[in-house]
């Protein structure tokens, strides 16, 4: 046990405060102090990617980061993709339709890594998706349907972007998929 440090973090758009031991990992902070158990811990070695969250829009392994390192930073977890827990983000919808999850334990990390991937490369090839997700292990699906889902979400994203570009007035035309948000945008 050592001294507790106070940190202020924006989590899924909401300002949150915590008092943590310096050794508390970001994953433990999110899960145990913030009650956001959607971030899963699969290896604690920084290999499996299950604990991936976005900090200031970039993917990080929350098991390898200390909570004190995200003081004054902006964190997006899987819960932030669907604030009401019912309405699915387009990526989540694509995962659902393409059966891209079985046990679901890797899914939160997969979603956040995919979100970053598609933001940086909105129309990836299959090889680019495979490379982009190579830091996230899935033990159930053999990746086939995850890759299909991400490619399908990219198609939907591209479709919605082009529809939006063609329409100067409507910010979100009927039937179009919303843009992929980053943590900042959600905030």
């Amino acid at each position, binding site marked *: *046990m050592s001294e507790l440090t106070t940190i202020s973090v924006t989590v899924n758009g909401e300002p949150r405060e915590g008092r943590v*031991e310096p*050794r508390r990992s970001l994953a433990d902070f999110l*899960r*145990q102090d913030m009650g*956001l*158990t*959607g*971030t*899963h*811990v*699969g*290896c*604690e*070695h920084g*290999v*499996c990617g*299950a604990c991936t969250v976005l900090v200031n829009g970039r993917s990080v392994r929350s098991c390898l980061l200390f909570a004190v390192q995200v003081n004054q930073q902006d964190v997006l*977890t*899987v*819960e932030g*993709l*669907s604030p009401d*827990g*019912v309405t*699915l983000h387009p990526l*989540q919808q694509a*995962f*659902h*339709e393409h*059966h891209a*999850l*079985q*046990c*679901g*334990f*890797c*899914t*939160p990390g997969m*979603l956040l890594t995919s979100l970053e991937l598609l933001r940086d490369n909105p129309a990836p090839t*299959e090889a680019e*998706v*495979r*490379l982009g*997700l*190579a*830091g*996230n*292990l*899935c*033990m*159930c*699906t*053999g*990746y*086939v*349907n*995850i*890759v299909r889902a991400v490619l399908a979400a990219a198609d939907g994203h591209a479709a919605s972007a082009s529809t939006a570009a063609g329409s100067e007035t409507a910010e979100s035309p009927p039937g179009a998929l919303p843009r992929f948000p980053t943590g900042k945008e959600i905030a």
Partner: protein
Amino acid sequence: MSATSHATTLGTNWVGQPLPRKEDGPLLTGRDRFLDDIGLLGMAHVAILRSPYAHARILRVDASAAAALPSVLAVLTGEEVVRVSRPQRGRIPLPVSPQVYALAHDKVVYVGQPVAAVAAIDRATAEDALDLIEVEYEPLPAVVTPEGAMAPDAPILFEEVGSNILWHDTFPYGDVDGAFERADRVVRERVTIHRYLSTPLETFGSIAQFDASTQTMTIWGSAHQPGQEINNVAAALGLSPGQVRMIVPPMGGGFGNKTRPIYHILIALLARKLAGRPVKWVEDRRESLLALCHAADGIMEMEAAIQDDGTILGLKFRNIENEGAGIDFAGRHNLLMLSNIVNCYRVPAVSYEGYSVVTNCCPVIANRGIGKPFMCLAVERMVDAVARETGLDRVEVRQRNFIQPDQFPYDTPSGQTYDSGDYPEMLRKALALLDYDQLLVDQEAARAAGRLVGIGIACGVEPAGSNLSYGMLISGPSQLLSGQGEAARVRMEPDGSATVYTGGIESGQGHSTALSQIVADELGLRPDQIRIVATFDSHSHPYTQTSGNYSNKFNGHDTAAAIGAAGKVREKLLARAARMLEVAAEDLELAAGRITVRGAPDRSLPIAQVAARAYWSLNDEAPDDEPGLEALHYYRNPRTRAPDAQRRLPVQMGFSAAAHVALVEIDPETFEIEVRRYGVVHDCGREINPMIVEGQVHGATVHGIAAALLEEFVYDDDGQLLTTSFMDYLKPSSADVPMIETDHLETLSPWTPLGTKGIGEGGAIVAPAAIASAVEDALKPLGITVSGLPITPTRLWRLASQGGKRYPI
């Protein structure tokens, strides 16, 4: 295609449709609650001190400093565990069984074996306290290979057994000697398999809470077989099974691995010490790789009596299975290999000699397909060897020896009956899927250009369901455990929807969606009107000792239990509606949420209206009727039985099959192996949900590919495990594997209610054999044959640089 005739009166509106899964919502949004997501008031957290030695005597354990640390709530050592609990026995009672407790007491027999445990206010404090426990060991020589453990001067793990050979037996079936006398020639092979594991991404864990006033232990825990776990804990703690309540939260993968009785017992013992306070332990990844379980490594020596035309007349097997330092699953790999040992082939005479040997490695438990991946690898390597030695084409040798479509149901020499299949068509279809003829042309061109390109071919049965009487082959007919079944309860709610409870356990396979489709058809409802209570709770869910999620049993056993219970509810519903409509129940039809008089569409009632009266209007009841619309059904497989006088019995109960074709390319300088294409044609009978079936095929196949090329638990000679993180124990990433191309063949099982067969294990059974075949084919220009896994670039390079011709060296 040969489709066995299948009679069912069930509707098939929903069964067969690729519905998106009802499980997905909470998993996608991060709102699901896995074991580690459970927090209870006052919860204590456990850390486990583990042996650094593979084999050592424990001379002294001093945990006083740990116990004195502020915020430490309880410490448990082996000495106390022996005093307050009873030892474990293996699943199959052995003639002489070692005494195994939740903690080591006099001796440790593998690295990572639990030696002491601390419960504290948080996990970090518990881990701090472990550093304060002093253990004095006297190291003993260790042995990690099964052949080493069988040597006369080997260190003995369990003195009470007197030898490291826990079990040894020989099973001759048919005229084996005659087959070898008649043979034109005998082909010999020696094939090895290594230790690996499917490693669910969520690790194993247990939470226990003891209510001293009622002497009731509640366990929230990882489990595949709730009946087994409940009875293990009850037996160890001296409680009635009725005093142990087991709850199994959603599991983040299982693959058979989450079956280690000592851990639930250990956490329960701590909970009893801290009566009232919940106690939680979740394994970290290092603990999991080190000490949860591994699939057994083994050494198989084989002889095949063949004719010059490639016909196999008889097979002899001698298998040595490395059980590690465990007794929980002792003998199981062997018996499951033995029972499936002819794979897809018509071989009339077989002898199987099996050894189950203990070593100072991690204990073995079930892993996806238990025993069958090695069975398939060994048999398929032998079939390729037959092709090699006779100069025949390997496709032709397979076609010549396949059990033919008109031979089903087919009795194998060891007493198993294959229900249905069309293996010749299955292989033809798989070759067509990847355009085999074109692959051969491309391969020839690639070889001419100096490239190492290989095509792998393998076929395998995928057994489903286990007749647990098979343990009698070791323990004798007095074994209590026999047969296989499942239990289900269906309750139609007053609003006409239905709720289902079963003894099965979900760990990602989509059972809730599949069961919803089945029960919807049975009750004339939509799947979204069927609620599956997927979190097993022994206070609400019916179960038997054979219940759970293992041995691919869902397709024939869980479905039959649910259909049985739903059918009883349907009868009650129709009987009630018949009274209300004043017609005979036989004249009623049930569909689309309504009960209608056949031929009189204007005379009908909504199901919900009938259901409501069953609960609200008790004056409706005749004196002998009971209100409510609820039914319990215990299904038992009627075809299970004990071994006969020749020790033949059906061990597994239904037989899917698959043909795999793999295209690999090996870099001639670095020997890096790339899987370029991979095709699977599988036959699992009727598909309840084709989307889920395809997902199972993908995942299992990638497990098998990774087992062949990446995953390996490596021990040094002292029994230290060198692969204790995912940086050393290599899992496949999305960049390591190709899209799995699939196609389907359907031969219905005559023995399951819907004609289904197993799905989920097959990919992991056949893929290792297909990869071995592909690599051997790629290395043909170098004259290298493959008779062991895993196949790694380093080892291949070393072999090739030494001019070796047989992998592994």
